[in-house]
């Protein structure tokens, strides 16, 4: 064995080839099957896509680095299920490009945050967390209420998402900017279009409490309110017990 090595280490090409071969095996065996084995991701016929406003909110979540402190992955452990709700299923993040499972909980898990608090609570909390949770370490995101939301390129966002596999329809792509507006402005004609294209269960509200214009706050709160609510799969009784 060491004799063989004596030869390999005299050839740069040989060394390169061996390194690439030896290093590729693990990844191939662990990753490739995840795309092909059917049991990897559960079936969830009721799974819905993010609305354009929620996509924009998710991008704000990414932009501000919320994932650095909040996970979105409830593990199959009893205490986590009791604290946060049913453990996360693979299907729940199957439209998440990329996933935001996170690796650190400086703050609590957010996988099932949707509908846990009111929109008003979120707006106050994001504006200054210490107004509602005095001990909080979270930054105050005051600019979210100041900054208008950019919607003109949301159609491009949906087509890019469609290119990587999220099933948006042509109609959804074409109306992306309008739908973003409509979702935060109930009782407008635009709002009806949102319910039509994304289902009647979609949250259509003035998320930041102000109707006149769309802010980053509207989008982020809309996203937070849908977390864990894209499908009911995790609440079905046929899931195995947590450990």
């Amino acid at each position: 064995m060491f004799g063989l090595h004596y030869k390999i280490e005299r050839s740069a090409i040989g060394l390169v080839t061996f390194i690439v071969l030896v290093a590729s095996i693990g990844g191939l065996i662990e990753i490739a099957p995840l795309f092909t084995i059917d049991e990897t991701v559960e079936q969830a016929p009721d799974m819905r896509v993010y609305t354009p406003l929620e996509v924009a909110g998710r991008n704000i979540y990414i932009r501000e680095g919320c994932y650095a402190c909040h996970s979105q992955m409830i593990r199959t452990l009893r205490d986590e299920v009791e604290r946060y709700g049913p453990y996360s299923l693979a299907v729940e993040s199957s439209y998440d490009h990329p996933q935001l499972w996170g690796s650190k909980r400086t703050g609590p898990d957010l996988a099932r945050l949707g509908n846990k608090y009111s929109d008003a609570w979120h707006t106050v909390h994001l504006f200054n967390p210490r107004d509602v949770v005095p001990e909080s370490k979270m930054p105050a995101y005051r600019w979210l209420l100041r900054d208008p939301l950019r919607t003109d390129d949301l159609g491009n966002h949906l087509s890019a998402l469609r290119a990587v596999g999220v099933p948006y329809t042509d109609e959804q792509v074409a109306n992306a900017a309008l739908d973003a507006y409509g979702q935060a402005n109930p009782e407008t004609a635009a709002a009806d279009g949102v319910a039509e294209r994304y289902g009647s269960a979609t949250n259509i509200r003035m998320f930041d409490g102000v109707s006149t214009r769309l802010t980053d706050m509207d989008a982020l709160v809309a996203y937070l309110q849908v977390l864990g609510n894209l499908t009911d799969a995790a609440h079905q009784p046929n899931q195995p017990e947590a450990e």
Partner: protein
Amino acid sequence: MIADLTRAERQWAMMILGALGIVGLAMAVAGRNDLLGIHGWIVLAAGLGGFIAFMRGKDAPEPSDDRLNEYYDAPTRLGIILTLLWGVVGMGAGLWVASLLAWPELTFDAAWASFGRLRPVHTSGVIFGFGGNALIATSFHVLQRTTRARLPDQISPWFVLLGYNLFCVIAASGYLMGLTQSKEYAEPEWYADIWLVVVWVVYFAIYMRTLARRKEPHIYVANWYYMAFILVVAILHIVNNLAVPVSFGSAKSYSLFSGVQDAMTQWWYGHNAVAFFLTAGFLGMMYYYLPKRAGRPIFSYRMSIISFWGITFMYMWAGSHHLHYTALPHWVQTLGMAFSVVLLVPSWASAGNALLTLNGAWHKVRDDAVLRFMALAAIFYGITTFEGSFMAIRAVNSLSHYTDWTIGHVHAGALGWVAMITFGSLYSIVPSMWKRPSLYSAKLVEVHFWLALSGTVVYVFAMWNSGVIQGLMWRTYTESGTLSYSFIDSLVAMHPYYIARAFGGLLFLLGALVALYNVVMTIRMPAPATEDAALDIPVQPALQAGE
């Protein structure tokens, strides 16, 4: 720098810089309504600035052919300085984010100064800025000494070093503006990723071209590690960053993968960024500078072979230990755990090899703080890998995951291993790189050593404590079977540890500042009249393995 280049190389450089400027302009125009445009201006400024510098310097006399009898160390010199500067920036950002966790009001109502945007500035600043520059600078140095061949030309090393730093600047400035893919350690957006691939291909070519001209039949161990670092990082980087941009005028892109497949790809990448960036490359450093400084051959050549192939093979299986108890299929978690545990063998083979090399030179470790940095690094490498294999066990990970224990583990590796081996290696080559008889002050190295050691110990103990407390509080039940603590209870319990961690980080940062000062003062010392450093030329026998 320009005076080092031949006339033909200067023309090449100007073409490359011109092309870079045009790409920058195109980005600025296409992205005029987007943050991409700002990065376009930065790229344009880099290309144009370089071009103007060449216009002014292009008529300098050509270098004489004597240069071919010497190693080409100018890129290494700049790389050393950049390493130290990024170190101060990255660790400064680390201290800032540490303080934000103790005193969250330090964001001053500015978006760029919030925790989520500064944290990647810290992680990329230290890993890519500090660590990456150290790897590039030392790899050029080691490659030439162990092959007894000069770098193949005078332009590609500059392309790699400066191009890489352009990548780092785009990355860090992007985070402050809110541009990130959110994948840990792979945050930069698609155009930065493409640029890094270009830089990396040239880097690899330098390695192969120099090896092709080597005067030593065998490729020395240190180079195996540097090559594994270059090759595997390329594979990881390309696969994990596959994404579709929103448009060519937009900085934003969407990852090709989603959900569980994305998580596995990301942590296959993430764990092996640890393995091949923060471990393999730095092991390359250790295998050259530690024996050299100790004046002893590597203890065991066979152990280094076992260690090398063990690390190259097994690390790639271990990524799934970042995903225990998640929606990742159970069989992948089990594989990841098994390989992580066995990984301890090759890891300790390297740590042990380094320490056994020091047998018979312990008096030098006692007297020489530079060697002591490297010895301590090997010890911390052993500690961190032991801890890592332990944390990879599912039951242990159920406690440690998501807590500060991970952060403690990270910094035992990052401060104790990565930063210490870097400082030791840099100190050991700075005098010869600038042809000075010695460092400006050996005392200051001693001061730095103790600052670094105490900073690391304070940091790591604070995080071990807070992590274990946090993990236990989350899973403690009352007698009636309900959870004892709210989440916020655990957060309150962390406060004193966050202050202690910031203090440890401050000590470590002060040490880095001392290093910067010491190196700058060394460079400013008058050069000695006689060139005794002339011994360091391509004909001198390179360091050989024992056995």
